[in-house]
Each structure stands twice: as structure tokens, then as C-alpha cells.
């Protein structure tokens, strides 16, 4: 049985969607087979062939502090989170480092993007736009001071958030995680799915007419708690969360694989990691969007997966009730799954006629595709599945019993860094970056960006038929990821494709592409969206393209928390390896500097008006970008294939002190926590650290936090610790710069960078600079930050 310290239990539920503004109302309507799909009242449907949506109607959505600072997605999420916390008997956490928030979303603050574009480009809209705002504002509301992040894997994001929550609890990094997803219905996704001809004009009809989806909106929250923590406080528990499986199709940016190979693999992993039998699963809440491609692939997956072991499993899609709530879907469906489990009731897919039922039976045989009305069924375990653009598959198991969960099975494995791919405004290769360090290159202007050239594709053997589809972010990510594989001499084959995964960290992800799409449909109307451009609005498209290009079929997650995402990707990737999920992981940081991104920075008064250097006490930073990919493998795997080892990833830590999203002042102590936790995780002390790769970018508010924390943490030693600052060359490239700082640590530790200019911070706060020989460096601390008060630290060592 799962040991108590690895058990995760659900102690609170919250939901808001088209069939209810809370769990009780939603569940009651679900039992009564109520659909929330109606003619939309919130977007322009002129000349559009479909005009249905499942919208939330809630008069109290603004009943929270500072609603004017929040996008509708954040408000939906906070409402559901408040309900879930109340249900769990939990209150305000006062920045408790053991309480985390992980929220999935697909389109984030897209309504604020629309508002900015159509209502005078007001700077107040900007902090509400990125997905990262959602978890940050939930954390700010409830005072969660642990890991605060967002999963941006489009329609699978809600499920992955809950899976990641359990992974972190089982790794000992949190006691309580407020996990879920949120998305709002808006013109961009509406027009986008119209352009793909993926909306059903009559309302979605999953596993039945399969003419397309109907969009919904809402939020679902599941309070996941370590069993021991819940026991200690005498909490009521709904159920256990057992294992999960996350995989990548490596196939197409919007369409699922027909053979459902990787969805089946996700389900296989979920069951294996849970330590249960397939026959233990009584009900599957399917993704069931209502598109032919999705539904047929799922039926193939269910048939292959359950086969003769569980031929009468019950299956349904609840999207006819809620609409497809994108990043919230998995979270809302988790709430349905948990209620189904705990009440021994399986929910139906609605709107079947006798003729439809007959046709379905011909396709699914004995499987119990529940239709029109719920029915009672004794349930032990339920499975909830979601798939997404970018080729993501996610499956998770909720259970009445503790199962036999597999986690941290490779905790003792050393993790080697074996490949680096660097795309930056200085060039698109590791060699170009090293040359720029040796030449002490500086940005040429206060806004710089990376440019992918045809030669990059040629060198990597990427064909035009592939690269023509890439947007700018996808180009940066694909080239840096493929460069990392090339650098590591790692060949992805049919045999190892499932043993390697990707975690992309990004601050703004597809926000630039979302803005472009908004501009397009404002000019041409919602009926004229672009099917070619729409997929780029999802933040995980870049990681999806890398998966397709490389053939990587394992774990695939995109996280977005601001710049810190570029270090979190490394930390979470380490955890995936330690969990025994993959033998190799690509951790990346990717952000782009389109003109609109510089415009946002200028409007927010954080862009410098001239080139600035770290610690220059400036009023802004150079806006940069890039993509950096780091391949990490178990030491055994690296040695088995005789790989070059740059260094080892030794430890990882987080800290959070809540301030408003968009701000950072007043949160600096949390950086101390992140550093100390990373040192502890690495089993080293401050004395062992020989250098720091920092995040100073010249903007004094940011640099001061780094400086003050280093003084506090290193004490008298601080003036002798060299601090390397990558942003003096590449500007503030957010997540890309955070991963670049880690790549720089790897280059210094491996000796590929022989010496470099470093800053030295004195206890009185003054800063000097001199060149430092890399030969004496054995352990390097890498740090990063995010608006809202999140910090992360990673320790790399020889």
C-alpha cells in the first residue's frame, strides 16, 4: 500500500461553470442532466456559423478584493478557490511556505488582451494578461507562500495541475496545494475554434454526432493535501489522488494521433503509477470534446487500454453540460470525477436518441458509455483524461483506497547535465554565446531579440515543411531544443522516445501571438480568424513543436510563472527524473520579444530607454528574449551512452512572499528561502557555494532584491562570491535568461567558459567587477525571480 508519507488526499472542492456557481449547484444540475450551452451573449457572432457557448452567469464574481486588478479568469479561479478552501476548513495561510498554488489555463487573461487593444491600450490591463497572473492572484488572496505556478498545457492544463500538485507533495515540497484550472470564454478562442471549423453549430455531441466542440468557461479547484497533514488537522477527506500519466504525441500541433498511442501510454502510466489494476477503474471522465478526431482517438484508446480486462467500464463526457472549458476542463472534470466516486454515481453524456445509442453501441461494444441520465455504480477508482493542442495527453486516478503509488523511485539517481542549446540575441548556438562572453558583448539597443535563420534549420536538418508552421516562439524553442539534443549527441529513437520528456518554462508564452490574433479579429471580425495562427496562441505550442520535431513522446509540460519559470523547469524536471518517470528531461526557458512585448514593458515603465548593465541603478531593463534548453539525464543513462557531462543538478528550492502580481518590492526575503531550500536539497551549505549566476538586469528594484538577499544569505562571505549576470549581454529575457543563467553555470563548471567578468557585492551594498577564472568553481548557485513574489534557486556542481 502507498506509504502514508506518499499519500495525497482531496480535502476541498470548488467549482464555477455554466451549470453552477458552486459544487452543490453544479452537481445537482449534473445529476438532472442540465446543459449550460446556450446562445452566447458575450461575443460578436456576426457572420459566424456557430453561436453557442456555455457561459458562467454569476453576479458575485467581483465580490473580492481589488476586482479591477484581475482578469475574469482570475476572478473565476479565486471564486472556486475560496469555495474549496472553505470546504477544506482552511483559511488564510500568511505566506506559509508549505502551501502551494498550481493553476492550469489555456488562454489566461485574454479578455484583458482584448480590452487593452480595444480600449486605449491602458497599462492597467497588462498585468492581467499573462496566465501567470492567475495562480499568483489566488496565492495573494489566500496567502499561499510555497510553489506558485501555472500549467499552460491548453486543454490538459487542469489535470496536469493536480498531477503536479501530487508530485510536489510526494517530493516533500508542499503539504497543501490549491490545484485546478481556470479559463474564460472570449473572442480569441471562439474565433480560433471557428477558424478551425471545430465548433458544432448545434452544440457539442461527444461520441455521438461529433461535429465539433462548444466552448465553455469556468474554474475548478481541488485542495490536495498530504495525508499526514490532513490527518493531523482532522480534515474531512473526499478521496485519494493516486498516480498520473503525462505524455506527448509528437504528431501534430492541433490534431491527436489517430492511433491514440500516447494517450494510451498516459493511461498506462496513470494506472502503473497508482499501483492498481485496470479493472479497478469503474468510471472514466473522458476528454470527449465532440470533435470526430478526438472522440474516435479516445474510443480507440479505451478499446485498446481496457480490452478484456475491463470491458464494461463506464465512460462519459460532461462537456455537454459545461462546454469545453479549455484549461479549466480537467479541473472541473476532476470535481465531477471525485463527486462521482464519492457518491457512487456515474454521470452521462447528454442528448442521445435511441438511434444514436444504437450507433454508439456498434462502435464501443460492451463499454458502458453512459447516456442522458446518471446511474448508480459502486466505484473504487475513477480516471479523468484530457488531451490538448501541442499533443499533450494527461490521465489521473482518484480512488477510495490508498493504492500502491509509485513515486521518488529514482531519488538517489544523480542527475547529469549533458546538453545545452542556446538561442539568444547574440546568436543561435552555444559557440556563439561563448564567443560573446569572451568578447564581453553588450546589447546594441534597449530592445533586442533573437533571430532564427535558415542556416539554423539546415544545420539541424529541419525541413521547410516543418519550420514553415512555426511562429516566433516556436522557432526559438525548436532550435534551442534541437541544439541541446545535438550538443548532447542524444538520438531520439522509437525505443527511447518515451523515456525523455520536456518541461518548457515561459513568462509570457503565447501572449504575443494572442495579441496578434486579437488584432486580426478586431480588424476582420470573429468569422475571419486564422486557423494557421490560432494554435500559436496556446503557451504550450512551442513545446509541442519541439516534441513533434524531435520525436520526444514522454512527459511534456509547459509552466508559466514569470522569469522564474526558466529555473522551475529545471527543478520540476529533476523531480520527474527522481520520480522514475523519465531517464532524460529537457528543461527549457523560452520567451520572445515581439514589438508588442517591448510596448508592454514601456507602458509599464520597466523598459530602459538606453542600454543598461546590471547593478547600474537604472529605472528599467533592456528587453531581450531567447530560448535555452538544458538536457538532463540520470548519471547512469549518461554514462551508458558515454555522454559528455557538463555538471550535475544537485538541488532546487523555492520561496514566495506574496505581493501584488506585477510587483516585486517587499518580497525579497523569499529569495533567501529559495536559496536555503536549494542548498538543503543539494546537501551543501553556503560555504560550499563558489559563485552565483544571478538575475540582475540593471533595473534597480530587481537588482536590489538580489543584492540584499545575497548579503543576508552569504554574510561576511558575500564580497568574495563572484556573481555572473547573463543579462548584461542578452537583456531581460525572462524565462530564457533564467535558464541561460543555469546554462552559464554549466559552461563555467565544465570549463567551456574559462573565465568571465563577475560582479562582487560588498556588505555595504557597493558593487565591483573583475574577471574570474572558472577553474576554481565547483558549485554554483543559480537564482531567479517572478512578479508577485516567487523565487527559485538551483545548485549545479561538478
Amino acid at each position, binding site marked *: 500500500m502507498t506509504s502514508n508519507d506518499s499519500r495525497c488526499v482531496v480535502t476541498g472542492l470548488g467549482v464555477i461553470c455554466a451549470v453552477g456557481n458552486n459544487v452543490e449547484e453544479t452537481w445537482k444540475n449534473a445529476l438532472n442532466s442540465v446543459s449550460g450551452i446556450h446562445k452566447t451573449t458575450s461575443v460578436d457572432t456576426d457572420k459566424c456559423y456557430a453561436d453557442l457557448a456555455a457561459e458562467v452567469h454569476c453576479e458575485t464574481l467581483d465580490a473580492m478584493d481589488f476586482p479591477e486588478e484581475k482578469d475574469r479568469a482570475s476572478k473565476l479561479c479565486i471564486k472556486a478557490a475560496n469555495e474549496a478552501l472553505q470546504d477544506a476548513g482552511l483559511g488564510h495561510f500568511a505566506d506559509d511556505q508549505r502551501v502551494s498554488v498550481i493553476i492550469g489555463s489555456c488562454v489566461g487573461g485574454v479578455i484583458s488582451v482584448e480590452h487593452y487593444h480595444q480600449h486605449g491600450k491602458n497599462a492597467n490591463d497588462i498585468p492581467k494578461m499573462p496566465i501567470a497572473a492567475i495562480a499568483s492572484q489566488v496565492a495573494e488572496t489566500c496567502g499561499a507562500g510555497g510553489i506558485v505556478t501555472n500549467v499552460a498545457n491548453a486543454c490538459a492544463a487542469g489535470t496536469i495541475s493536480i498531477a503536479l500538485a501530487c508530485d510536489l507533495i510526494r517530493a516533500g515540497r508542499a503539504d497543501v496545494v490549491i490545484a485546478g484550472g481556470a479559463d474564460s470564454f472570449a473572442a480569441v478562442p471562439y474565433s480560433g475554434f471557428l*477558424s*478551425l*471549423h471545430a465548433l458544432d453549430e448545434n452544440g457539442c455531441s461527444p461520441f455521438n454526432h461529433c461535429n465539433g466542440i462548444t466552448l465553455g468557461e469556468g474554474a475548478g479547484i481541488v485542495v490536495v493535501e498530504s495525508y499526514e497533514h490532513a490527518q493531523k488537522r482532522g480534515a474531512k477527506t473526499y478521496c485519494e489522488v493516486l498516480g498520473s500519466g503525462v505524455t506527448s504525441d509528437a504528431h*501534430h*500541433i*492541433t*490534431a491527436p494521433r489517430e492511433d491514440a498511442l500516447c494517450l494510451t501510454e498516459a493511461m498506462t502510466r496513470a494506472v502503473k503509477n497508482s499501483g492498481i489494476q485496470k479493472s479497478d477503474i469503474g468510471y472514466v471522465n473522458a476528454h470527449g470534446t465532440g470533435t470526430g478526431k478526438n472522440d474516435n482517438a479516445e474510443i480507440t484508446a479505451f478499446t485498446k487500454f481496457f480490452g478484456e480486462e475491463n470491458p464494461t467500464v463506464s465512460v462519459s463526457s460532461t462537456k455537454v453540460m459545461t462546454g469545453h472549458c479549455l484549461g479549466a476542463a480537467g479541473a472541473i472534470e476532476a470535481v465531477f470525477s471525485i463527486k462521482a466516486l464519492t457518491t457512487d454515481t456515474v454521470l452521462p453524456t447528454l442528448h442521445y436518441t435511441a438511434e444514436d445509442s444504437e450507433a454508439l453501441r456498434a462502435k464501443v461494444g460492451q463499454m458502458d458509455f453512459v447516456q442522458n441520465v446518471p446511474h448508480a455504480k459502486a466505484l473504487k477508482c475513477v480516471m479523468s483524461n484530457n488531451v490538448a493542442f501541442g499533443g499533450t495527453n494527461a490521465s489521473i486516478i482518484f480512488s477510495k483506497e490508498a493504492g500502491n503509488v509509485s513515486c521518488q523511485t529514482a531519488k538517489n539517481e544523480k542527475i547529469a547535465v549533458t546538453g545545452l542549446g542556446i538561442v539568444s540575441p547574440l546568436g543561435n548556438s552555444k559557440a556563439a554565446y561563448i564567443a560573446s562572453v569572451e568578447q564581453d558583448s553588450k546589447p546594441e539597443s534597449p530592445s533586442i531579440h533573437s533571430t532564427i535563420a535558415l542556416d539554423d534549420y539546415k544545420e539541424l536538418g529541419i*525541413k*521547410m*515543411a*516543418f*519550420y*514553415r*508552421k*512555426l511562429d516566433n516562439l516556436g522557432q526559438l524553442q525548436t532550435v534551442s531544443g534541437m541544439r541541446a539534443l545535438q550538443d548532447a549527441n542524444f538520438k531520439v529513437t522509437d525505443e527511447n522516445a518515451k523515456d525523455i520528456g520536456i518541461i518548457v518554462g515561459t513568462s509570457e508564452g503565447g501572449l504575443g501571438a494572442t495579441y496578434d490574433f486579437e488584432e486580426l479579429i478586431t480588424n476582420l471580425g470573429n468569422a*475571419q480568424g*486564422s*486557423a*494557421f495562427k490560432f*494554435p500559436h496562441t496556446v503557451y504550450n505550442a512551442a513545446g509541442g513543436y519541439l516534441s513533434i520535431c524531435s520525436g520526444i513522446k514522454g512527459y511534456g509540460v509547459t509552466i508559466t510563472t514569470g522569469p522564474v519559470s526558466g529555473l522551475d523547469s529545471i527543478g520540476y524536471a529533476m523531480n520527474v527524473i527522481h520520480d522514475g518517470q523519465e531517464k532524460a528531461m529537457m528543461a527549457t526557458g523560452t520567451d520572445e520579444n515581439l514589438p508588442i512585448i517591448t510596448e508592454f514593458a514601456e507602458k509599464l515603465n520597466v523598459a530602459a530607454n538606453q542600454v543598461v548593465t546590471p547593478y547600474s541603478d537604472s529605472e528599467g531593463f533592456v528587453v531581450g528574449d531567447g530560448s535555452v534548453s538544458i538536457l538532463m539525464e540520470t548519471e547512469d543513462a549518461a554514462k551508458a551512452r558515454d555522454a559528455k557531462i557538463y555538471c550535475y543538478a544537485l538541488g532546487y528550492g523555492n520561496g514566495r512572499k506574496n505581493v501584488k502580481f506585477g510587483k516585486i518590492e517587499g518580497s525579497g526575503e523569499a529569495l533567501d528561502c529559495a536559496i536555503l531550500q536549494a542548498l538543503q536539497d543539494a546537501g551543501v551549505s553556503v560555504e560550499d557555494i563558489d559563485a552565483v549566476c544571478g538575475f540582475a538586469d540593471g533595473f534597480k528594484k530587481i537588482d536590489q532584491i538580489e543584492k540584499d538577499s545575497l548579503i543576508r544569505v552569504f554574510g561576511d562571505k558575500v564580497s568574495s562570491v563572484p556573481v555572473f549576470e547573463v543579462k548584461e549581454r542578452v537583456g531581460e529575457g525572462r524565462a530564457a535568461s533564467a535558464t541561460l543563467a543555469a546554462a552559464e553555470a554549466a559552461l563555467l563548471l565544465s570549463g567551456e567558459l574559462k573565465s568571465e567578468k563577475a560582479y562582487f557585492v560588498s556588505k555595504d551594498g557597493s558593487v565591483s567587477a573583475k574577471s574570474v577564472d572558472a577553474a576554481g568553481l565547483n558549485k554554483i548557485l543559480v537564482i531567479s525571480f517572478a512578479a508577485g513574489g516567487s523565487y527559485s534557486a538551483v545548485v549545479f556542481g561538478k
Partner: protein
Amino acid sequence: MNNEEVKSKLKAFFMSDLGVDGDVLNYDTPLFGEEIGLDSVDSLEIISFVDSNFGVSMTGAGKEPFQSIDTIADFIAKHQA
């Protein structure tokens, strides 16, 4: 607009909106072959472009007219009022 102009406009669209390298795109190059690699998402864009620019609906036209710029131009010529 004559047939050559239609083809030229289509080629410009493939280059600007679908990211195709003009150097390898001739009027008879297979669009859904390995080199250009168009897929179902691209065909939606072609349908939308042809409808907006030439007033011809390619919805439900089957695969044949989508083979190359030549075949799309032929389809437009045949169906333009």
C-alpha cells in the same frame, strides 16, 4: 484577373500566410507532399483565402483541387461566375 495573376496571388499567399519558401514553390509543386507539407489546418486557410479573394467556395470540393497552385487556379477559373 487572369489565370497567371491568380496563380501569382496564390503563391504570394502561400509564402506570406503559410510560411512556404517561394524558391521551392512552383505552380505545379504538390502542396500536400513531403516538401511543402501542407495539412488539414492549411487547407482551411486556403478555403478562407480563396473565398475572400476570389469569391469561390472550395468547401466540400474534395482533395483534387488542392493538389497544386495550378489545380486551385483551375478550380477558381471554373467556378468564378
